[in-house]
């Protein structure tokens, strides 16, 4: 049974340009799917459609049951007027007292409950956003290049925290990125999008044990292999392998 199945026959922007055409895929419960595509391939639009924020498209969307959805955006998008604790309680009113403290402890923010987002570093704000996404105990977690603007070590730390949280509750994850190594180090499966109007150019299963470091052997091998087979893969173009 699938957690999610997406079929988009067409999605047009208000200016008439076609962003997505004949794109379809599905994801199993607990599967970690990365979506890689060149910029302008409609990756963010795709996530907005799946989350229900954008309903103006042709096609259909099947979510198992009344799936709870978590969404981590490119920017942390915390409410600046609420403290860390209040931001978390906003999405999950039961996040109080010891439950809240435990949750904060898990992402290493034990002493930050009373601080406002402005008082946190970019990395810490993202950890709060990550925690917020997991607090609703999502069955489907959408992530839109969430670690993009962070420095290397901070991003690595957040990726590790993401994997720990994911392995504890096993939601289905759709992780959008334009970084091939990041996709290969995290996901069970990578979907490569073509340039707009986008569809799935390649559906690639990642067959390697976790944890796989971004610069580790497994990820490097896989990415070299992929780029050797499909030199224009990151531009979203697949020539038939020679």
């Amino acid at each position, binding site marked *: 049974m699938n957690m999610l199945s997406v079929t988009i026959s067409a999605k047009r922007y208000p200016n008439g340009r076609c962003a997505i055409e004949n794109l379809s895929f599905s994801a199993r419960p607990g599967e970690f799917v990365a979506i890689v595509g060149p910029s302008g391939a409609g990756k963010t639009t795709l996530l907005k459609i799946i*989350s*229900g*924020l954008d309903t103006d498209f042709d096609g259909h969307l099947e979510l198992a049951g009344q799936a709870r*959805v*978590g*969404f981590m*955006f490119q*920017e942390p*998008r915390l*409410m*600046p*007027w*609420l403290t860390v604790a*209040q931001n978390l309680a*906003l*999405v999950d009113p039961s996040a109080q007292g010891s439950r809240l403290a435990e949750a904060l402890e898990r992402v290493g923010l034990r002493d930050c409950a009373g601080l*406002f*987002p*402005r008082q946190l570093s970019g990395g810490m704000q993202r950890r709060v956003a990550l925690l*917020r996404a997991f607090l*609703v105990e999502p069955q489907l977690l959408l992530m839109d290049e969430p670690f993009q603007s962070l420095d290397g070590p901070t991003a690595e730390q957040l990726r590790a925290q993401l994997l720990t949280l994911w392995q504890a509750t096993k939601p289905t994850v759709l992780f959008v990125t334009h970084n091939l190594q990041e996709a290969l180090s995290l996901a069970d499966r990578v979907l490569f999008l073509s340039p707009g109007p986008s569809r799935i150019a390649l559906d690639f299963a990642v067959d390697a044990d976790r944890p796989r470091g971004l610069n580790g052997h497994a990820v490097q091998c896989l990415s070299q292999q992929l780029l050797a087979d499909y030199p224009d893969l990151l531009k979203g173009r697949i020539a038939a392998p020679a």
Partner: protein
Amino acid sequence: MSEELSSQPAASAWSRVWPLLLLTVLWQLVAMQAHSRVLPTPLAVFEVLANEVMSGELLFHLGKTMARVAISFCLAMLLGVGLGILMGRSRRWDRVLDSLLILGLNIPALVTTILCYIWFGLSESAAILAVVLNKIPMVAINLREGARAVDSQLMEVAQVYRLGRLARFFKVYLPQLYPYLFSSARNGLALIWKIVLVVELLGRSDGVGFQIGSFFHFFDISSILAYTLAFSAMIFLLEALLLRPMENRLNRWRL
């Protein structure tokens, strides 16, 4: 300013007080020089003020005026905020109501007041209505700007996480309007004081405006100034005890 407030409250209080003291001293000097019936000295005015307070007269009229100010302020804020949000969110309503708003902003308070009294009689509700009508357009214009500037990204967060209507409005939407709310509350209060007095002068038999009207007939300048002083004191109290602490509290996250 915020820094000043938090680190040196005493110094900041003093810097608010000394210009007023200076003004009083200047007034005393000029009045002593002029030695005229139309400009009594501050001391003479304070004496009248004390008598009026003792007799209970001043407190009665001040209370009446304050009640009118409070009621019309709340009504005007509520309706103005609603109208502003509606216009900021919907282009269609904005187009429909925009010309009415401009008309409302520019009709003199005196005209609205007189028309309200003529059409609805010299009643308390006509008086309140006149004040509210004068004030709504200003609040609405201010809040419309705020509603237009609302961050759609944060609203998306509220939508994705399926927040209830109340949480969405009070924790995500409204906080973005606080700066606009405060500026209209402040300007609004100032405007309402002024209009309430005119309304009282024209068609009520109590309140500060009515009293000042009668003093004018008797050329009683000391009493006019005494009422003005009492009135200003109220405004300073409101500002210091209500508006500023509230604003500081709601702006805590900006520090």
